[in-house]
């Protein structure tokens, strides 16, 4: 049982990061459906940089950087040119899926997986694995795990306790009003979307440099979208999104453990579908009407 809980906490990390990334963009009024593509690109580029430099930290910087860059592209389309944010995001997602597997084949002459790259150092020395119960878990964690669980509380403080956070939220709700008191809607949305991309990139970096140690084709595997669902579940609240993401991590871990323990008694596909079915059921019943920041997804044309 403790094993399930612990692996749930770890399976949740990329989903938490994606959920918070989605929240950061949407709080400023930009819907970021491109999380999936940003995560995948972040994963690929971090592998490439870590491979070339033979250094995990270079991979980290590159993966987070490329996420921020994609965020800026999304902002350029949706803020500067009032594009349909779903179109721009769909483009990024499809191009990321195609581009990463194209480059994987073109550069490494192999499809499916990349060569192994140096991983990010663990937080604790390997002797911590001897601690009974949680030792195996402690031995695996890197600073990204800590960031993922700290970020929601940091955002909670930022959005609800600082003047700047209040301004950002106002841009996501009533951009006209924000602009009338001198806040630059364009700047807030650009910065928020870039940060959102960087955090999504970090989720990809985590998969490569903290979990697997190599890049795998389509390794984001829907976690970006699942993160968005977690954000909606959490009602666009940083800690709510965290709880929802951990819940998805739990269904994932349960799925793995039930599969190990019950063998083929229950179809594997049913377990794999569990997070999605639960999400649908929750939307139908538990959460009540879902509504995000009022101006999310709507282009804003400056009145000045």
């Amino acid at each position, binding site marked *: 049982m403790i094993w399930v809980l612990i692996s749930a906490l770890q399976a949740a990390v990329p989903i938490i990061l994606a959920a918070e990334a989605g929240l950061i963009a949407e709080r400023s009024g930009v819907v970021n459906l491109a999380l999936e593509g940003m995560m995948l690109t972040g994963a690929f580029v971090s592998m490439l940089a870590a491979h070339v430099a033979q250094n995990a930290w270079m991979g980290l910087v590159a993966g987070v950087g490329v996420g921020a860059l994609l965020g800026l592209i999304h902002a350029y389309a949706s803020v*500067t*040119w009032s594009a349909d944010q779903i179109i721009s995001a769909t483009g990024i997602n499809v191009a990321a899926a195609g581009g990463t597997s194209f480059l994987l084949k073109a550069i490494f002459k192999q499809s499916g997986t990349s060569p192994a790259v140096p991983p990010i150092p663990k937080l604790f020395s390997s002797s911590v694995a001897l601690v009974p119960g949680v030792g195996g878990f402690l031995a695996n964690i890197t600073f990204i795990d800590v960031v993922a669980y700290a970020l929601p509380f940091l955002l909670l403080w930022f959005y609800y306790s600082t003047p700047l956070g209040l301004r950002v939220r106002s841009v996501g709700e009533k951009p006209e009003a924000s602009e009338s008191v001198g806040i630059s809607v364009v700047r807030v949305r650009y910065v928020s979307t870039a940060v959102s991309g960087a955090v999504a990139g970090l989720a990809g970096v985590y998969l490569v440099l903290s979990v697997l140690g190599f890049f795998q084709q389509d390794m984001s595997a829907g976690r970006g979208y699942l993160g968005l*669902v977690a954000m*909606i579940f959490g009602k666009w609240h940083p800690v709510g999104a965290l709880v929802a993401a951990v819940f998805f991590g739990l269904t994932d871990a349960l799925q793995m453990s039930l599969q190990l323990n019950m063998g083929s008694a229950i179809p594997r596909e049913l377990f794999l579908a569990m997070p999605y079915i639960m999400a649908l059921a929750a*939307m139908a019943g538990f959460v009540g009407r879902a509504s995000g920041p009022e101006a999310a997804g709507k282009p804003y044309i400056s009145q000045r």
Partner: protein
Amino acid sequence: MRLMRKAIAPVISLLLALAITGVILWRTGYPPSAAGEVFIRGSFGSTLNFAEMLIKATPLLVAALGVSVASTAGLLNIGVEGQIYVGGLAAAWVGFAVKLPPVVHVTVCLLAGAAVGGALALGPAWLKVRRGVNEVITTLLTYYTATLIVHYLVVNPLRAPGFTPATPMIAKTARLPLLVADTRLHLGVLLAPAIAAALWFVIYRTIWGFRLRSFGENPIAAAYGGISSSKTVYAAMFASGALAGAAGAIQVLGLDHRFFDSFAPGLGFDSIAVALVGMSHPLGVVVSALLFGVLRTGVLEMTVELGTPKALALLVEGMAVLFLAFERLYRRWLLREGGVRP
């Protein structure tokens, strides 16, 4: 002139995507000129190649029409892939499990595929109407759920003996007839543009189409005009899912004659790109489905002859869609249109 203005963004986006792909090919060590020649030969080198291109474009066109119906009503059905899968499986099941006379059988199969595809899209429609959940998220969730369940059914209870996981072959009476001997051209190739023409008529010449378009342009104004928003959402999503289901059915009844486990991976996501590039207009979608057919067939030929990765097609598609997002930028540059200031 209006048509030209509408076509500006798709044309520029495709050209930009192709140009960048050329540079990428060149930088990764594939000569772009030779690649271009092979690419063209892929679709136009022989009658057989041309037929294969049309066969690829056919399900893409029908599914993309499904995406367009939803977007005409301002909805994005991003889960078409799932509706294609359930539609294909339903058609296959009626095809092998039910005995019916020739013409009736294939018709019933097609309708079954459409009905099941449409039914799957009603879930997200209900969640949208009753709970206010964005359809983008829910269609995606139903896509994941549906494809996993279809996978389970094909690998377990519905599997025919044999090495590859697939259902039994459908009856001869359930097949879409071949049009030209020695090719794989089937009746679906004519059916798809006929559906597009019918859809154009419904959307632009009937009261239902008018309701759909008014709701898509301004739901609040449409509601004041007496158009029921919940009915419109249900109708648009059902039609959208039904067309996607029909696309899956056509693939099974015309080409594979059974449902393979991995029968059309990515077809639904491609069709979203096709619909976007076709500006969600039935006739624009016909053109863009043909272009994407050429793209897919050409890239496949390049993979066979030059060893370029198949994912190239996805990269071109993704870039084309991303560049579409900058429609206002092109208009400003080329037409000096005002409106949005950067």
